[in-house]
């Protein structure tokens, strides 16, 4: 009887704690969504608040950001660029990283350890310190201010390689031999047999890479020059002024910017933790 009681008490306290935490996590998003329907002057005067007042709420900010009224924002283009970059980056990143991770896990070859050490080195060197020569290189390669310039330098990413390698190590090598007997090429074995088996790992890395691409800031800020080429975060950042007079359009643009990634998260979240656990952060 006693243990039954402590069970309930502890559960209630834990529930209370996590309700507070969940409110802390979700409240700012609720507040910004509410604010996006309010007038710019109201926002300047009161900042974010939780006052429901249907009389002063309307879609004006959305109208303003989508048509670039007053600010000249090319929101539709930024959105399109961000979506395009996210899809291309995620697709190529998953193909290449899984190939490399799989190659390192499944074969024995001379340069294997050197290449794996290379992956680890890329993993620990902060990319920020090579930004300047990378910028110079992008100018020389004529990929400055292009989608390729945003994607290429980071498309083969060390963390997914590491993750796919860990995942592939745990797989049965017999499948490969079965494929060989059936006359598959080595690449065929990978794409036809192993990739489907690695589906959970792909889901986990898809969300990670899509999120990284969608929210990426410093490199696109450096590599993109013209308004028409900007991604969403860079475009939104141009609306920041020290006087804060664009905040009404900025909040509307921010709310729309969160939507696609939220959809992806809801679609993939089931796989996320399982994928992360299998690949193991334990190293």
């Amino acid at each position, binding site marked *: 009887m006693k243990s039954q009681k402590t069970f309930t008490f502890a559960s209630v306290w834990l529930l209370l704690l996590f309700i507070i935490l969940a409110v*802390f996590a979700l409240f700012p998003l609720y507040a910004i969504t509410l604010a996006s329907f309010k007038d710019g002057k109201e926002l300047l005067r009161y900042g974010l608040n939780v006052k429901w007042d249907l009389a002063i709420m309307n879609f004006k900010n959305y109208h303003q950001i989508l048509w670039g009224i007053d600010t000249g924002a090319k929101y539709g283009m930024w959105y399109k660029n961000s979506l395009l970059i996210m899809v291309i980056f995620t697709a190529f990143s998953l193909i290449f990283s899984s190939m490399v991770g799989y190659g390192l896990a499944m074969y024995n070859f001379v340069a294997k350890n050197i290449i794996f050490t290379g992956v680890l080195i890329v993993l620990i060197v902060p990319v*920020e310190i090579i930004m300047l020569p990378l910028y110079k290189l992008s100018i020389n390669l004529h990929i400055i201010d292009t989608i390729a310039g945003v994607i290429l330098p980071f498309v083969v990413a060390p963390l997914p390689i590491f993750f796919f390698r860990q995942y592939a190590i745990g797989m049965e090598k017999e499948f490969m031999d079965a494929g060989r007997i059936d006359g598959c090429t080595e690449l065929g074995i990978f794409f036809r047999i192993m990739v489907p088996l690695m589906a959970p790992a792909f889901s986990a890395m898809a969300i990670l890479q899509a999120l990284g691409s969608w929210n990426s800031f410093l490199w696109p800020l450096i590599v993109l020059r013209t308004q028409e080429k900007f991604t969403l975060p860079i475009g939104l950042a141009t609306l920041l002024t020290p006087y804060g007079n664009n905040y009404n359009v900025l909040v509307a643009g921010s709310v729309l910017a969160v939507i696609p990634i939220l959809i992806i998260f809801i679609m993939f979240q089931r796989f996320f933790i399982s994928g992360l656990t299998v690949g193991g952060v334990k190293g």
Partner: protein
Amino acid sequence: MPAKTTWVRNLFYSKKVAPYIFVAPFVITFLLFFAYPLVSTFLMSFQEVLPGATKYIGLANYKKLSDPDFYLAIKNSTKYTFWTLVFLVPFPLIFAVFLNSKLMKFSNFFRSALFIPILTSVVVAGTIFRLMFGELPGSLFNTIAGYFGAEPQKWILHPMFVLVLLAFWRYIGINIVYFLSALQSIPQEIYEAAEIDGAGKLDAFKKITLPYLKPVTIYVLTISIFGGFAMFTESFVVYSGNHSPNGIGLTMIGYIYLHGIEFNDFGFGSAIGLTLFVIVMAINIIQLKFFGMFKKEDS
């Protein structure tokens, strides 16, 4: 099988050639977009880089580092990293243990709810926090401060408070997920055995849970140290650009951006970058040594 295609076929069927095809994407991008820029960062840090007239100037770039703004940037980045470690390691660990507990109801819902903030870009998150911490009396935090009888504050003049809270909000969920995944790999039998031996909940936590969480804790610490020193965007958005009042929001990456991109001084920018790298590596090596990561028996 036609003879002329035999060698091509063999290429695709060869177990010797295949691994090199698989790792080729990494090797190419590693050489072009990592090794080459890294070497040129090193070389440029000893050069004055001007269009068409680059010359070797020895340690002059490193001597320029005795700049009050550089020390300010180091101070700000170090303080930020310190406070994010204080809040973003122990709390997620404890919350993950709670979420993993059998007593916890709806733990999947809460895990997802706490994870959602990381989905916002730093630009969006920064905008939200900038508005919540507005300086006018009607702003959210000044209203809250008002309930406790405090005067309206110019919150953004307290960069550490705003930026660390922003980091806590954005990263708590992902760190909880890291700890949770490690917790779920602990075999339940160990806890059952401990219970039979009469160990209490706290004993089990100290003697079983914490040792099992050591590797993931070290991982979170390491990435948090790198992340803390690499912070730039948060400050950029909260202060509407790279120029905050008296440099209170200047970080080390902001300092590289200022000299490298804004002033176009690649040589000096590279010297700052390498110095940052040495600092971060030194701190992480000390941290890893402290936790005994280099000892054989732990690996």
